[in-house]
């Protein structure tokens, strides 16, 4: 049991790290779009590179946010029955779901995503537009990277479910209590 707790906490830190990166990207994205609007309107300046940076940052926000939201139970559930179930039943749903849905799904996206990004790297792919960003493989690599972290977050869901099954933790504590945060 002890090593499960250790693993659980270690995996949780990975998801938090993803969340941290996504938060930084979020703030940068808002600033980036704001700057682009002001620069275009006030100074008549347009940079395709900066315009492309917008969607690069936006991609990081929602992609790396997914594993983060997994750990903090931010993904919406249909709770018609779920809320009324006991801790053990909830843990079973989460344990099985993580093992047969999340991890295989992440595995498939990860392996095909890896080839997708690798091919881009091998071709030296960049933007086709004037002044666009080079090294398209970096943003494409976010796909397999996210898949990897979704898999670790899925494993994390499983380890946490095991802790709940053992009676050491419960879902109320982790639940997104105040509605949002």
């Amino acid at each position, binding site marked *: 049991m002890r090593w499960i707790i250790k693993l659980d906490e270690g995996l949780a830190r990975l998801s938090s790290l993803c969340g941290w990166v996504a938060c930084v990207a979020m703030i940068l994205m808002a600033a980036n779009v704001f700057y682009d609007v002001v620069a*275009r309107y006030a100074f*008549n*300046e*347009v940079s*395709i590179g900066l*315009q*492309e940076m917008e969607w690069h940052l936006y991609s990081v926000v929602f992609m790396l946010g997914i594993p983060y939201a997994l750990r903090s139970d931010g993904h919406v559930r249909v709770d018609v029955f779920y809320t009324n179930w006991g801790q053990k039943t909830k843990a079973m749903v989460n344990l099985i779901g993580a093992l047969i849905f999340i991890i295989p799904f992440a595995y498939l996206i990860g392996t095909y995503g890896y*080839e*997708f990004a690798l*091919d*881009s790297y091998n*071709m030296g*792919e*960049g*933007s*086709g*537009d*004037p*002044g*666009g960003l080079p090294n*398209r493989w970096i943003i494409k690599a976010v796909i397999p990277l996210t898949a990897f972290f979704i898999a670790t977050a899925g494993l994390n869901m499983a380890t946490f479910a095991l802790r709940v099954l053992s009676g050491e933790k419960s879902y109320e504590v982790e639940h997104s209590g105040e509605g949002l945060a």
Partner: protein
Amino acid sequence: ATQSLAQERFTLRLAETWGPNFPIFGDTSKRMAKLAEEMSDGRLRIRIDSANKHKAPFGVFDMVKAGQYDLGHSASYYWKGKVPETLFFTSMPFGMTAIEQYAWFYHGDGMDLMQEVYEPHNMLSFPGGNTGIQMGGWFRKEINSLEDLKGLKMRIPGFAGEVFAEVGVSPTNIPPGELYTALERNTIDAVEWVGPALDLRLGFQQIADYYYTGWHEPATELQFLVNKDTWEELPADLQAILKTAMRVSAYDMLVQSQHANAEAWANIKEEYPNVQIKNFPEDVFQAMYDANKKLLKEAAGRNELAARIVESQENYLDKTRAYTDISTRAYLNTMGEVE
């Protein structure tokens, strides 16, 4: 053995960059599939998936390369960010007209050079239909001098965008869904799209008065991509049939474009008297011509293959244009004088 081989049936899957029922472009892939099936007596069937199904309009290259699709219908210059030399097989600013370019492809070195570019990516590429001369774009104010282009915000992608950038335009990325609103509200000043038939659908004629004539894409050629493994699996007769179907449907698109653009233009002239056709002033053309030369030189300097392609196109253009001058141009000039 020949007997059983002759009976073998193939169903190939084609991914196209356009949405379903996209006019002219989509008609071309459908026409190709129909021709191939009819000529092969049903042995070669082609199933078309449009962008709504594969969701990757600009992933057609990668999907055909990886064999996820056997065929693709797209445009070569979309892959310029991946493989810079693909740029040359669509249309070049101040380059050849459709008939001149077809001559280069089918009777000059065009086709061989194109295969050389696509070969390392496990694909063959064939001409896939021509739009004819594309219009220079919709402008909300008149361009009277180079000065008017400075800082002008325009949706103009790709190599042509680079040429525009050289003369001071600010190429701007706007998602197609927001283009109309962006032009209407002066978020951008100009939009380049295709030609009357396709532009009409987006409604630019309602919000922009100046429709400039084209120079940047005088002969936009689409492309059919074929995965090489698929190609090699096909028996020789089906290869021939596929090739013929691609070639016929490509020519036919040029013809259809001429027809549809003429109809659409008649329509615009009648219903939108606000629209005026304009030519860029001579100094603008000259500046863009020089900028294009400079960029082409840079592109040719990148590697040996690019240099050979640019050289082949330049030489071919010189020769073929000399003939165009004493035939088509002479005729149109004569017509202009007598009218």
